[in-house]
């Protein structure tokens, strides 16, 4: 056996022909043009906006100038005159804030500990986890400090609020509707179409529709609001109600996305297992916990990840519904960037864009590593 192997290795392997080589690499070759185009379109704006983030734009005769200012635009956002706008104004920590902070700290410490005990520790893994934990901890502290007492959240915290609360509510609603529509109920197809409609409407259209619906003077619900004695109150003048109205619009638009993907996943769960479980007398909750959820979890995690990426970019609803107001209450990071751009402050606009890129990347990569991948392993 060893002799035969030695004999074979001494012979020069036949040189593959061009057709064979092309055939062997056909996959990458076919994909390459698309990759180059995508990279060009993705990387070029990234480089230009990176340069803008380090510059100050000003008008000049016949055109404009860009003066290099280093990290000044980032400093302005994080520590300078725009700190109240981007990060917010801090309030005083109360008992609730301390308890929540302790809970998040314990949860993150437990995740880190579990990783170190897993026996698969790598340098990259440690760095990645430390960045994730740092950003999540930072966002938690900011959210708690700016929502506390006399604090006022900035666009970073407001965006995080939209992302965390919005995506959670949309996922739960989408899953609930999908579970209902997966049942053999009458008019199932009709409901599927109806629930899917909001996703097909352009976001700015939804924003204007919601603005009309939520109009306290002339909107269709105005008589109802008056009937219940709320005629001297408006959602648009209070920070929390304005934020919630933006969330309602966002949820109305994006729940169908969750719904349609989760419905497909539920309908693809192993029918034989479900039927066998029913024959064995398992209840609905048991079937969901032991069969449905393990089956749909990888898809659920993926769809939440896609939605997370999208949710960070929210702009249409706050822009149309409230213009970012009252005060700064509903202004998202994308709207912050857009408003800076609109006022010639291209450096700050790009800096906000880069901060958004950093935060959304860390959150989404963390979610992928800590949630999506484990669910895939779980399924395998």
């Amino acid at each position: 056996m060893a002799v035969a192997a030695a004999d074979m290795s001494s012979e020069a392997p036949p040189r593959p022909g061009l057709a064979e080589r092309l055939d062997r690499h056909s996959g990458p070759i076919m994909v390459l043009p698309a990759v180059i185009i995508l990279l060009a379109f993705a990387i070029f704006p990234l480089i230009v906006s990176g340069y803008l983030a380090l510059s100050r734009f000003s008008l000049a005769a016949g055109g404009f100038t860009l003066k290099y200012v280093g990290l000044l635009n980032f400093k302005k956002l994080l520590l300078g005159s725009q700190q109240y706008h981007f990060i917010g104004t801090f309030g005083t920590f109360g008992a609730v804030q301390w308890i929540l902070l302790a809970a998040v700290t314990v949860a993150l410490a437990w995740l880190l500990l579990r990783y170190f005990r897993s026996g698969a520790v790598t340098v990259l893994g440690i760095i990645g986890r430390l960045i994730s934990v740092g950003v999540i901890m930072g966002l938690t502290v900011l959210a708690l400090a700016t929502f506390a007492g006399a604090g006022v959240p900035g666009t970073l915290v407001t965006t995080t609020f939209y992302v965390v609360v919005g995506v959670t509510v949309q996922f739960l609603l989408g899953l609930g509707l999908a579970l209902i529509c997966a049942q053999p109920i009458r008019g199932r197809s009709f409901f599927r179409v109806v629930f899917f409609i909001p996703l097909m409407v352009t976001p700015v259209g939804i924003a204007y529709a919601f603005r009309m619906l939520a109009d306290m003077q002339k909107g269709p619900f105005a008589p109802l609001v008056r009937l219940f004695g709320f005629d001297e109150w408006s959602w648009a003048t209070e920070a929390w109600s304005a934020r919630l109205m933006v969330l309602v619009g966002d949820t109305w638009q994006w729940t169908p996305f969750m719904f349609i993907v989760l419905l497909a996943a539920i309908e693809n769960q192993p029918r034989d297992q479900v039927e066998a479980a029913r024959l064995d007398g398992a209840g609905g909750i048991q079937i969901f916990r032991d069969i449905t959820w393990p089956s749909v979890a990888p898809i659920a995690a993926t769809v939440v990840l896609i939605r997370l990426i999208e949710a960070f970019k929210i702009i249409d609803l706050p822009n149309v519904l409230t213009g970012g107001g009252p005060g700064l209450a509903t202004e998202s990071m994308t709207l912050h960037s857009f408003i800076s751009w609109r006022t010639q402050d291209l450096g700050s606009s790009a800096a906000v864009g880069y901060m958004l890129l950093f935060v959304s990347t860390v959150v989404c990569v963390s979610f992928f590593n800590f949630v999506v991948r484990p669910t895939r392993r779980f399924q395998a």
Partner: protein
Amino acid sequence: MRTSILLAGISAVCLLAGSATAQDQFAGVTVNVMTQTGAIQEPLQRRAPEFEKLTGAKINVIAVPFSDLYQKVLTDWASGTNSVDAAVFAPQWMVDYISGEYLEDLTPRVDADADIQQDDVGAFFRDFSEKYNGKTYMITLDGDFHMMYYRKDVLEEAGLQPPKTWDEYLEVAKAVHGKDMNGDGAPDFGSCIAKKRNAQSYWFVTDVVGSMTQSKGTSQGAFFNTADMTPLVDNEAFRKALDFLSESTQYGPEDELNLDVSDTRPLFASGRCALNLDWGDVGTISIDKANSKVIGKWGAAIMPGSKEVLNWESGALEACTPEICPHAVDGVNHAPFAAFGGWGGGINAAADPKVKDAAYAFFSYMTQPAQSNADVVVGGTGFNPYRMSQLSYSDLWKNAGMSEEEAQVYLGAINASMSSPNMILDLRIPQNQKYQQVVLDEAISRYLAGEIDKDATVKAVEDGWNELNEEIGSDEQLEVYKATIGAS
């Protein structure tokens, strides 16, 4: 109205008959004109086909929201894209467009154009809104002054007079707030003022502050100390103005903080507001038979004023005396604010010469009395009177449905504002949009939302304006500021 249409028709026929080649003058030429969505867009869009029939030029009106207009035009011209050949915008932005050399000098064209009857254009618009450094860069299409509107019947029923001061404004608003003013059984509002962020609300704070900071004439200025460019913000006048905005919100619609002028105008016309601050549009909207419920029930007046004015040295308010308030009427210092200065048309200097000619011809056509007279009496156009011939009662207004009594108060308020020696000129220093539409607008919005208190608001505006002064250059800004208000 009929007369205006008839005149427009005759004018069009004369143009067609008089010049057989006029129809082909701009054949094949397309002019892209950018302006704001809604009012202002409407008359341009409506008259574009008429103009095309007359000259062959196709006018392509591109409309964007007001808050995007400044930057869209600027980006297009500064980046060299030049897809916008001309724009209808706020005269105060002109300074930024001129500093970049993007705006065409229209002086020779205007001087040679007898059809636009420049002598008939109000002196303020002709000499201030259209010009910069003695050159004409814009063609006025609209006249803009802030005014106060009131419900004559509601005030009479309550035994009240139209307010002359801001304190009286609040008293009247408080007294009538919650009464049913349009007979629908629902309580209505004492005051309606647009207060939405990122909209057109930020001008209204200047109405109140200005009547206390400027008392010695236009050249005194209302925004900065002309000695050193210190913002006139950290003082009792600005704080009192903040109090006014805050208290007036109590007598307004529940969602007033989310209302722009496009929302408050229909509210007044539908009879839901006793008092309202706005541009001239409300007058023409209120006589619209199809939509107005206040025909014959409304009045207009010059903006309220103050019996106390600011001592610039001490930062305190002092009672008016003939010495410190030389222009006061019955002891009340009025400082009518020429907010915005009237929409006007400007042309991209980098446009093709033939396109520039066509763009100018279009703006000339729009401002000629035959068209302008018909447009300024219609509420939906967004155009308000700016020609002297439009500022007195005539068939023009009679045919539009305005009674002589209404015209007296409406046109009287515009005339009084325009002729006031203490008129506040809009801020026209470089990057004025950042000073007002960003720093001021954001701080006022945060204050009204309860995010920050009065002192923090004062600090936010003062710091923001000082930071801009430092960035752009305090001395340069001061020089321009003094030049624009005529200060020595």
